[in-house]
């Protein structure tokens, strides 16, 4: 079969907020840019983000970027890189104003400025009173941002390959990335996109868990591509469990509910967060609130017939606030629970939500890996941004509202660096046909006919194992068992067959390719978690309950070859201000 070949200056894989912010920057700089997305861009998971985007605009309460930086470093449990965090918090106001100029329909204050709400882990003056830093478009901020970014890309005439699935990166012998193999989902045809620069913006991998808040498309495709290219993934043990998923289903109920004044109660009707976080209470960091809910339920103080969830009370806020500020949440409750939160509290339980870890990058969006004695050597031509990347601005635990910020800040930064790279490297590197062939062989694997296991069967086992062995609380015993079980699942992969060999919109083949990525990401997560013998951020070890800065204030790096772990230091030195040294983390 002949392979279609296309050439672009820049290839962007993924059309969520990160990919679209990058493509907009590149298109406006008149680069020839291709955006490849396995779904039509506005179907990307950014669309589901609810609460808002953080920036120290000080529209509601006093604020400045340095306080935002402190909160982010503390929220990260001191695993975040302080140079990248400073950069993000400093540039945040400018980029949120820019979103406003793009047309994002932010909610407004009486004086006409952007509405901001309180969110978890936010403070004024380095840990004092609650701040209000989250810029919101009701509770549909992600939808508003994604659509506005897509719309501005239409205006900028970005070239889109909608419903194309990227399978593998193409590299040369020296390790430079030359583009990727993508498959048209509609026709089944494979295409080689040659690009001088390639950006991965493929989002998270929440689908490795059974109960999660993620879209079905969040299968860690970029993470799998990177591992297969011999590049490590960083800090993958840090999985955020969002405290308020709809109990039993996992769908997200925004932290904005608590930002607007909602609070959690247990089966005794007690506001239990007052015990766990006396100051911040329900607006403590997500890792803290999730653990508290888990413990309340475990200790028999849950709600409902099986005492297996807690309640999120909004019924004291009044219909006006809920209709104005949380209309989407109300709609979800009516649809999925048949209850109206104006009158009835919402049953909630932690749900797998976000990967703090990902593809290691520096603050310019360049993918970096250890080469000989250099811990962070850029991979030529390869960039990453958004949830699939690990800059790391989130460290061990991400603050709510920092994800929508991350995607626009580092989507833009990566694009700027790509433009620079192309100025300095004017010539295209020769294609490496061996790498193309290898990628095509992997793709053709799913043309094999035979009898064996099904994609769905293996996927269910994988998700169950991750839930059982790598959840909110972890122990060595559980994690070791997890490594063993996920390893067995990985060994079963060659025995999985599909029975649909048609070319036209073959979703069975796409789901098989996604399964390969899910297995890689799950293995990486559980191996990284088993290795880290401390508790930090979202990684909570019952057997190692303390944070151990001496030994463990370092980033994990997992290489798929031999399931090998390596480590690199945290960047504790900011760009211009003093660093925030690790302190005990209380809310």
């Amino acid at each position, binding site marked *: 079969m002949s392979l279609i070949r296309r050439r672009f200056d820049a290839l962007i894989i993924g059309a969520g907020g990160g990919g679209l912010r990058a493509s907009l920057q590149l298109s406006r700089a008149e680069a020839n840019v291709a955006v490849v997305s396995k779904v039509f861009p506005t179907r990307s998971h950014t669309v589901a983000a609810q609460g808002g985007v953080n920036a120290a605009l000080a529209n509601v309460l006093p604020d400045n970027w340095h306080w935002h930086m402190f909160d982010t470093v503390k929220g990260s449990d001191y695993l975040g890189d302080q140079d990248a965090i400073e950069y993000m918090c400093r540039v945040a106001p400018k980029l949120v104003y*820019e979103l406003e100029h793009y047309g994002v329909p932010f909610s*407004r204050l009486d004086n*006409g400025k952007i509405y901001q709400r309180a969110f978890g882990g936010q403070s004024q003056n380095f840990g004092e009173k609650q701040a209000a830093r989250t810029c919101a478009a009701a509770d549909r901020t992600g939808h508003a941002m994604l659509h506005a970014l897509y719309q*501005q890309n239409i205006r900028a005439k970005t070239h889109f390959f909608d419903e194309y699935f990227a399978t593998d990166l193409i590299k040369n012998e020296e390790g430079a990335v030359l583009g990727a193999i993508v498959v048209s989902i509609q026709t089944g045809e494979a295409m080689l996109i040659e690009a001088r620069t390639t950006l991965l913006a493929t989002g998270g991998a929440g689908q490795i868990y059974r109960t999660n808040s993620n879209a079905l498309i969040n299968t860690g495709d970029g993470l799998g591509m990177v591992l297969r290219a011999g590049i490590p993934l960083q800090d993958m043990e840090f999985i955020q469990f969002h405290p308020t998923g709809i109990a039993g289903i996992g769908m997200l109920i925004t932290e904005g509910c608590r930002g607007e004044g909602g609070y959690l109660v247990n089966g005794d009707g007690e506001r239990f967060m007052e015990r766990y976080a006396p100051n911040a209470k329900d607006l403590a960091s997500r890792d803290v609130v999730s653990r508290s809910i888990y413990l309340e339920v475990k200790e028999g103080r849950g709600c409902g017939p099986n005492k297996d969830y807690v309640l999120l009370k909004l019924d004291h806020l009044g219909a006006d606030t809920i209709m104005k500020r949380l209309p989407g949440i109300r709609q979800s409750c009516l649809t999925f629970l048949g209850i109206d939160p104006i009158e009835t509290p919402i049953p909630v339980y932690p749900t797998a939500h976000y990967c703090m870890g990902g593809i290691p990058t520096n603050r310019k969006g360049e993918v970096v890996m250890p080469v000989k004695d250099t811990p962070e050597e850029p991979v030529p031509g390869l960039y990453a941004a958004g949830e699939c990347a690990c800059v790391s601005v989130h460290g061990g635990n991400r603050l709510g509202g920092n994800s929508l910020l991350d995607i626009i800040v580092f989507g833009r930064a990566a694009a700027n660096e790509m433009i620079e790279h192309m100025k300095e490297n004017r010539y295209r590197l020769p294609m490496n046909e061996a790498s193309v062939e290898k990628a095509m062989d992997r793709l053709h694997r799913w043309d094999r006919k035979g009898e064996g296991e099904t994609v*769905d069967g293996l996927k269910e086992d994988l998700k169950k194992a991750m839930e059982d062995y790598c959840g909110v609380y972890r122990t060595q015993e559980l994690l070791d068992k997890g490594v063993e079980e996920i390893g067995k699942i990985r060994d079963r992969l060659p025995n999985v067959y599909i029975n649909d060999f048609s070319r036209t*919109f073959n979703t069975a083949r796409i789901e098989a390719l996604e399964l390969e990525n899910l297995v890689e990401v799950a293995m990486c997560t559980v191996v990284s978690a088993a290795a880290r013998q401390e508790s930090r951020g979202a990684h909570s070890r019952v057997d190692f309950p303390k944070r151990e800065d001496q030994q463990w204030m370092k980033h994990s790096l997992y290489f798929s070859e031999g399931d090998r772990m390596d480590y690199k230091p945290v960047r504790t030195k900011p760009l211009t201000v003093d660093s925030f040294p690790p302190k005990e983390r209380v809310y």
Partner: protein
Amino acid sequence: MMSTTDWTFNIYRFNPETDQKPTIKSYELQGVDSEMMLLDALLAIKKQDPTLGFRKSCREGVCGSDGMNVDGVNRLSCVTRLSELNNPVEIRPLPGLPVIRDLIIDMEQFYKQYRAVKPYLIGAEPEPEVERLQTPAQRDLLDGLYECILCGCCSTACPSFWWNPDKFLGPAALLQASRFIEDSRDEATHVRLDQLDDAYKLFRCHTIMSCVQVCPKQLNPTRAIGRIKERMVQNKL
């Protein structure tokens, strides 16, 4: 109350590589909770028959991937409970656009009409260094317009769109047009209104209101179209 029953699903199947014409295939799910969402039922059916094609993503009615015609009504499968439906359930692709395979339609014509209304804010230059101000009342005008998820349920339920999909913009695109016409920050209102002043683009709406009935986000494109017409009259005075 949870009630479990056996459900039958009669689903439109078409694979252009093997089928001369579409067929209806029946699937059974035994002892299912009738409060289950249709998307979950389809995922269970896909386990029996992985060749069944449909789009899906967010599972919560915000991405707009899984529009389909269910018992004759355009719906999103992820926010439709089985208990709202007949048993057997009749499932077909959204009508009026070409079928690629099974429940997957080619939405290019729909997207083309969306792009035709210049669906992006055209603000005054130079941009200020902070946000443009907008009063809460001005911002309220966008409620009911900006929430569209481009699922296509409305336009593919519109007889005028079926008849002239290339000339009539359809309810979804016109709702977008209204979203920018109503935005106090947009500077291109007159141009937008002039462009819509054509026998087909806007005026093929005969207020049949199918769009309003089917919109899974409870939006009202007919009202938006009416508002555009009012603005057009004001614009001419």
